[in-house]
């Protein structure tokens, strides 16, 4: 009998073009996603070397980081942003790459667009010059972020030079309680293993609570596997995956669908496959999570308190915590639920899919955000926005006092006009609470869409279980 393999091992083995003696491999890339921030220098490199794009048909570009989320008819007013977005359009035209421009209904955050179009499929290798490419792992695709030099390498050769990762399995057992979302599970895992816990590994999420998640929830989990330092996140494809894909515009069509399906069903890890490391989490024991510091590992249950650096034995960790609390303007021992907020951001590649908007809308329906709070919803794509409007979610949000915006990365990383002012505090459904991430001096608390909605109503961090 052949050696049992993990999902990662199988995808890897199917994509090796060349293997050097030292184990370095040349890996074929099935899908290359491109956006405006990390690609201009790569196209410039191709141009100066006189190299074409090897497989423009396996490449899709979309502008998302810089685009305005207010009235699109006004265009992009920021000159630098405009230049980046226009450069992407010009590069796509010159190199024959499909491009969803700002006026296209399919435009949106690159990691929301791929799955939505049915481009993201099990068993694929997917790369993008963006660390949250890990999102696509939810479909059982090996998907990871790369730098701009590697973007150029993939454009020119459709391959990447890589060494295999180690396998880690994160098993989430039990069932989530009321008000507990996929975001809470991944924040719980990051809190447990830390932001370097997954370094050098691909994390396969498994267990009852993961199988039970929708595709949207699985994408949220895989999206943040980079926040645990992992190269990628993976979830075995199953009937939910296949049902999600069937009929999507760029999914395999009738004729090859059955063949694709048969292949996809061979991908899940074999019984007895070896994982170099294992972590476990009990979904039933997890409460809704919020971050209190400036790293995604600085996370606690909403019914807890701000931790005390004085209780830290490691001096460098203590110093980092003190710096984080000073930046965040928090004192040790404070109840997390006493932390007042100024802004609520529901959006990002982590939590701007239709299910996320439904979950937040269910909390704010027939209620109103606190007077002191500025709240915005930024749908992940034009199609998510359309769908939400068809379901009347836009009315629910607007009636509750939210701003209803156009799709893009927006306040997740504040490259467009959506940013926090120094000292402002935000309940955010995004993925990073680093210093200045949502604007210089801005303070970010990460949480699920349900929890961000509850915070909007209360004007402070709140336990969604007490609202619904």
């Amino acid at each position, binding site marked *: 009998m052949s050696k049992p393999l993990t999902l990662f091992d199988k995808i890897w083995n199917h994509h090796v073009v060349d293997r050097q003696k*030292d184990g370095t491999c040349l890996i074929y890339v099935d899908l290359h996603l491109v956006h405006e921030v990390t690609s201009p220098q790569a196209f410039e490199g191709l141009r100066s070397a006189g190299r074409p794009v090897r497989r423009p048909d396996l490449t899709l570009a979309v502008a998302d980081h810089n685009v305005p989320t207010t009235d699109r008819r006004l265009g992009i007013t920021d000159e630098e942003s405009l230049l980046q977005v226009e450069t992407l359009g010009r590069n796509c035209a010159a190199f024959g790459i499909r491009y969803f421009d700002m006026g296209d209904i399919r435009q949106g955050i690159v990691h929301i667009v791929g799955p939505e179009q049915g481009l993201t499929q099990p068993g694929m290798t997917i790369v993008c010059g963006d660390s949250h490419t890990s999102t696509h792992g939810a479909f059982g695709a090996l998907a990871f972020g790369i730098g701009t030099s590697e973007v150029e390498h993939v454009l020119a050769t459709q391959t990447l030079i890589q060494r295999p990762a180690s396998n880690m399995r994160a098993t989430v057992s039990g069932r989530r309680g009321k008000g507990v979302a996929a975001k809470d599970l991944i924040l719980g895992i990051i809190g447990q293993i830390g932001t370097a816990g997954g370094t050098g590994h691909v994390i396969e999420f498994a267990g009852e609570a993961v199988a039970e998640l929708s595709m949207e929830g699985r994408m949220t989990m895989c999206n943040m596997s980079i926040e645990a330092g992992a190269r990628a996140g993976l979830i075995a494809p199953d009937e939910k995956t296949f049902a999600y894909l069937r009929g999507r515009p760029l999914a395999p069509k009738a004729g090859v669908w059955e063949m694709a399906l048969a292949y996809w069903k061979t991908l899940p890890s074999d019984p007895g496959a070896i994982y170099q490391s294992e972590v476990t989490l009990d979904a039933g024991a997890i409460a809704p999570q919020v971050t209190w510091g400036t790293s995604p590992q600085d996370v606690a249950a909403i019914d807890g308190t701000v931790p005390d650096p004085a209780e830290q034995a490691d001096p460098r960790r203590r110093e980092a915590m003190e710096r984080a609390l000073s930046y965040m303007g928090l004192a040790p021992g404070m109840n997390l639920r006493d932390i007042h907020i100024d802004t609520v951001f529901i959006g990002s590649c982590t939590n701007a899919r239709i299910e996320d908007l439904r979950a937040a809308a269910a909390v704010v329906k027939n209620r109103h955000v606190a007077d002191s709070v500025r709240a915005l919803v930024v749908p992940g794509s034009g199609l998510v926005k359309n769908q939400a409007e068809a379901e009347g979610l836009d009315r629910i949000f607007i009636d509750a006092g939210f701003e209803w915006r156009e799709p893009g990365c927006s306040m997740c990383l504040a490259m467009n006009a959506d940013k926090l002012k120094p000292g402002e505090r935000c309940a955010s459904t995004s993925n990073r609470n680093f210093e200045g991430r949502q604007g210089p001096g801005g303070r970010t608390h990460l949480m699920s869409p349900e929890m961000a909605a509850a915070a909007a109503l209360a004007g402070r961090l709140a336990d969604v279980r007490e609202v619904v």
Partner: protein
Amino acid sequence: MQKFDTFSGVAAPLPIDNVDTDRIIPARFLKTIKRSGLGAALLYPLRYHADGSERPDFVLNQSHYRKAGILIAGENFGCGSSREHAPWALLDFGIRCVIAESFADIFYNNCFKNGILPVVLPKPEIARLTECAGRGANAIFTIDLAKQEITDPDGGTLTFEIDPFRKHCLLNGLDDIGLTLEKAPAIATYEQAARRTRPWLFK
């Protein structure tokens, strides 16, 4: 790519864990279509006050470290985003080598594409080098990639591990793309086979 064989320079101690790429180069500086000019914004939130004035206590603002060519950091350096603007900013400032207890994967990869040598050393050795680096302008370190050796200001040496292929590329300043294009026949063979076994990936 500029090659890296030996390098001598002042090392700036930055004994902080989890220096993320948003700190190395905040997102608002990524609105460029060039690789150059990012050095002025390197480590912006650590280097500058909100009004743009320098924080005099920060290491790179102290006179003997303004021309530092080496950075000595803690664990998980470069975590977060995939932005290659992070190594571009380091390079533009003049940093050719980062020595740390550990690195985040994507950042580590990106260094090699830009002629920057990332070196991983155990905690006690980092602590000793950090202490040496604290002596300022007279604390010149020399890194010899071929020998995989660091010479500290007192003449002591220590060795480090590095992947042989990456070492080879860095020593010779090799262009990855050029190397891979030599394997174009293998790529074409792979594509032909994939077209048969996974035809849905082809138009």
